[in-house]
């Protein structure tokens, strides 16, 4: 609970500090898992709570049942803080999962035909990100008054190729859609792409660059901002060992960050 | 014991009202077996259900042991009902309970502690002849055995009155006799008042002391069974009395004997009660120069003496036949010339 987190970081103490962090299974929970031994050395006993959606980890953080969470990027965090009035802070980014747009039949952005389907996850949190990526590649134009992070399909103002957006597919089904809906563009989060035996760097038609603002962060309640245990957690996650684990394990599909 | 005054019950449904029981007044004495007979829809069931207030009367009063059943509170009514046993045509046993548990049910309802129930239940099981079947479920019993359980159950709370609604109508003739014998013996042993609904005349004949005949909610006739049998007034009653002697109804076969010959007359003889002259035919044959052919009919014993009808043919001189007729009248046997059959 909260109490332990606040008193955490006192490595002189014999009692290990309990830390509970919420995460989605891949890759966040796996990265945390990898960090466990190092944290133990630092006197921190890490418990990982896995979540399947993007609303509840923040709810759980708000009601105090976890000390921090590790699943979201800054734009989403900001948006959620605004919408739900959370008093959260980011303790720093750990990695970027570049989102990619894949297609079985389309091999070049220039060959995208009129009326092509664009399939993306039903997670509202990622819609803006996909749309921003499409905008960067000149396929659509978003309403300039809208923050690209929270943009919705409705905010597309220019759509020269008449792309057809389907933004309601279960994220877990995206790879299956890539396989079967061969004429469509499918925006797949990197974690699902990896699990679906896709290699983002090779298979993606469009891949987010490392300049992406979507670094995944450790988030916690403002009151915990100075928690030593959480600071230690961030440090460990940015350590060389963990960073090289990410690079190797995820085949370049995950880009570690350290700022 | 039970006095019913001007009892009425009207059912109102969407499209019409039914006067199921209409201004019925009856007196039933302690220890009576009181029969109520009538055709389907006559209001018999409604009548008996009014007595224990399964239906609320529209009008009238039911005085049971000096207690007016119509002005009881809910709680009082429940207590009162515990003193009225009821037996149903379809037994209405709980299939989820054994014979023992079914009979113990009214005792549970009356709040009698478990320990005190056992003796009573076993005694009743013995009484209705089901010893050894305590742990059977109703589905393992024959119709007659089920009705015995029903009877035992209705007696569990030592009721003063037993209501039977077509208690034997679902049983075959054999079993019916069996159950009726049981009812008579209980009536005698426990001095229980029994009100018995039926549409079968022979049930009335066999065990009832008094009878009321219902038709369209009215009691059209009531009194001692023999009185009603002897002088059926209403058409309904006549038809029921006929039921008892089916041959009496089918008088068509008499046609062949009804001729215009003055020397032959078809006569109906009606024997009623203890002093019915059983030797009548023999007497007449001796005293008069006349032949008596028995055509059809029957004589049977009832609770109150012999009862029956014989159709006979008198053969002889017209004057002799006339004399015979007059003689028969003096013996108390009913006599009637049948000169046509319709």
């Amino acid at each position, binding site marked *: 609970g909260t109490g332990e987190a606040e008193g955490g970081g006192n490595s002189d103490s014999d009692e290990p500090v309990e830390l509970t962090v919420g995460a989605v299974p891949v890759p966040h929970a796996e990265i945390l898992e990898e960090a466990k031994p190092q944290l133990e050395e630092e006197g921190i006993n890490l418990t990982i*709570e896995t979540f*399947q959606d993007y609303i*509840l980890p923040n709810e759980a953080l708000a009601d105090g049942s976890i000390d921090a969470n590790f699943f979201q990027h800054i734009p989403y965090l900001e948006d959620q803080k605004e919408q739900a009035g959370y008093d959260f802070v980011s303790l720093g980014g750990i990695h970027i999962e570049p989102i990619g747009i894949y297609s079985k039949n389309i091999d070049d952005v220039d060959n995208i035909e009129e009326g092509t389907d664009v399939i993306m996850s039903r997670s509202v949190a990622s819609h803006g990100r996909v749309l921003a990526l499409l905008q960067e590649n000149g396929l659509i134009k978003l309403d300039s008054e809208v923050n690209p992070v929270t943009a919705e399909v409705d905010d597309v103002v220019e759509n020269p190729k008449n792309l057809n957006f389907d933004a309601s597919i279960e994220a877990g089904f995206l790879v299956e859609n890539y396989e079967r809906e061969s004429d469509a563009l499918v925006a797949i989060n990197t974690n699902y792409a990896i699990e*679906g035996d896709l290699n983002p760097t090779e298979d993606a038609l469009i891949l987010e660059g490392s300049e992406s603002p979507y670094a995944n962060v450790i988030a916690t309640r403002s009151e915990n901002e100075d928690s030593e245990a959480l600071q230690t957690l961030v440090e460990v996650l940015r350590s060389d060992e963990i960073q090289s684990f990410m690079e190797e394990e995820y085949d370049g599909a995950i880009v570690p960050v350290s700022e | 014991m039970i006095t019913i005054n001007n009892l009425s019950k009207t059912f109102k449904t969407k499209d019409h009202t039914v006067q199921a029981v209409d201004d019925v007044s009856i007196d039933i004495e302690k220890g009576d077996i009181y029969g109520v007979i009538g055709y389907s829809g006559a209001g018999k069931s409604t009548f008996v259900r009014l007595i224990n207030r399964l239906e609320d009367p529209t009008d009238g009063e039911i005085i049971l042991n000096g207690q007016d059943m119509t002005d009881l509170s809910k709680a009082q009514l429940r207590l009162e*009902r515990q003193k009225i046993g*009821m037996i149903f045509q379809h037994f*209405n046993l709980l299939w989820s309970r054994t014979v023992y548990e079914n009979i113990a049910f009214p005792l*549970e309802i009356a709040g009698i502690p478990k320990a005190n129930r056992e003796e009573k239940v076993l005694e009743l099981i013995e009484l209705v002849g089901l010893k050894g079947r305590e742990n059977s479920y109703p*589905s393992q019993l024959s119709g007659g055995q089920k009705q015995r359980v029903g009877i035992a159950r209705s007696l569990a709370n030592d009721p003063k009155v037993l209501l039977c609604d077509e208690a034997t109508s679902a049983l075959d003739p054999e079993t019916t006799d069996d159950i009726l014998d049981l009812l008579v013996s209980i009536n005698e042993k426990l001095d229980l008042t029994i009100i018995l609904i039926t549409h079968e005349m022979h049930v009335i004949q066999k065990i009832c002391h008094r009878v009321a005949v219902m038709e369209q909610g009215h009691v059209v006739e009531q009194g001692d069974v023999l009185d009603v049998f002897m002088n059926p007034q209403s058409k309904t009653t006549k038809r029921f009395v006929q039921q008892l002697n089916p041959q009496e109804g089918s008088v068509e076969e008499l046609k062949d004997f009804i001729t215009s010959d003055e020397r032959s007359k078809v006569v109906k003889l009606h024997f009623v009660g203890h002093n019915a002259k059983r030797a009548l035919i023999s007497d007449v044959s001796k005293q008069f120069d006349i032949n008596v052919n028995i055509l059809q009919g029957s004589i049977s014993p009832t609770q109150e003496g012999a009862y029956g009808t014989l159709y006979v043919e008198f053969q002889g001189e017209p004057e002799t036949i006339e004399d015979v007729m007059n003689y028969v009248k003096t013996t108390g046997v009913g006599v009637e010339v049948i000169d046509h059959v319709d």
Partner: protein
Amino acid sequence: MLTNIFPNVDMEKMWVATYETLYMTFISVLGTFILGILLGLLLYLTNKGNLWENKSLNSIVAIIVNVSRAIPFIILILLLFPFTDFLLGTIRGPNAALPALIVGSAPFYARLVEIGLREVDKGVIEAAKAMGAKTRTIIFKVLLPESMPALISGITVTAIALISYTAMAGVIGAGGLGDLAYMEGFQRRNNDVVLACTIFIVVIVFIFQFIGDWISKRIDHR
């Protein structure tokens, strides 16, 4: 050998998930049984011609039952957050799934209970009334025992539906076999895990069906 056919199946996780599924199913079956019988009794008793005949109460209960039967499970979980939080102090884990599971299946079971109660012979109820029984006695000694086989086979059907329902409770971290199949099997394309979970689920289904059939046969003396 089994590890050849099921290379990705982690038996420890399987047992944990099985435990979670069984835990959620048991508790929610229990809750559904009680709440469903209560609602079913209310539906039955307030119906026309029955002991507590009451048209408006009957309509209200019928509306509640119909409405909660139709609300999608995920919305139901959401709507019950405040209640769950108040009751359990958390909105996550197997326990937090229970309110939604129970509220989602009790109305369905209530309908089955009502159907079962309607089958109880009116004559038997009348006989109890004629003996001077209280309504409570009629409920507990006549209505429920006489409809028990129907109540049992109804809860068997409901329990089997609940097993598949628990999979959806995965969204609030309740775990269970359905969730394991989805998370570890499907999402990671480990078809062996999907298969293994499905087999476990089927086995549980058959055990439930068997127990249900056995009990209902045992208590049915008709």
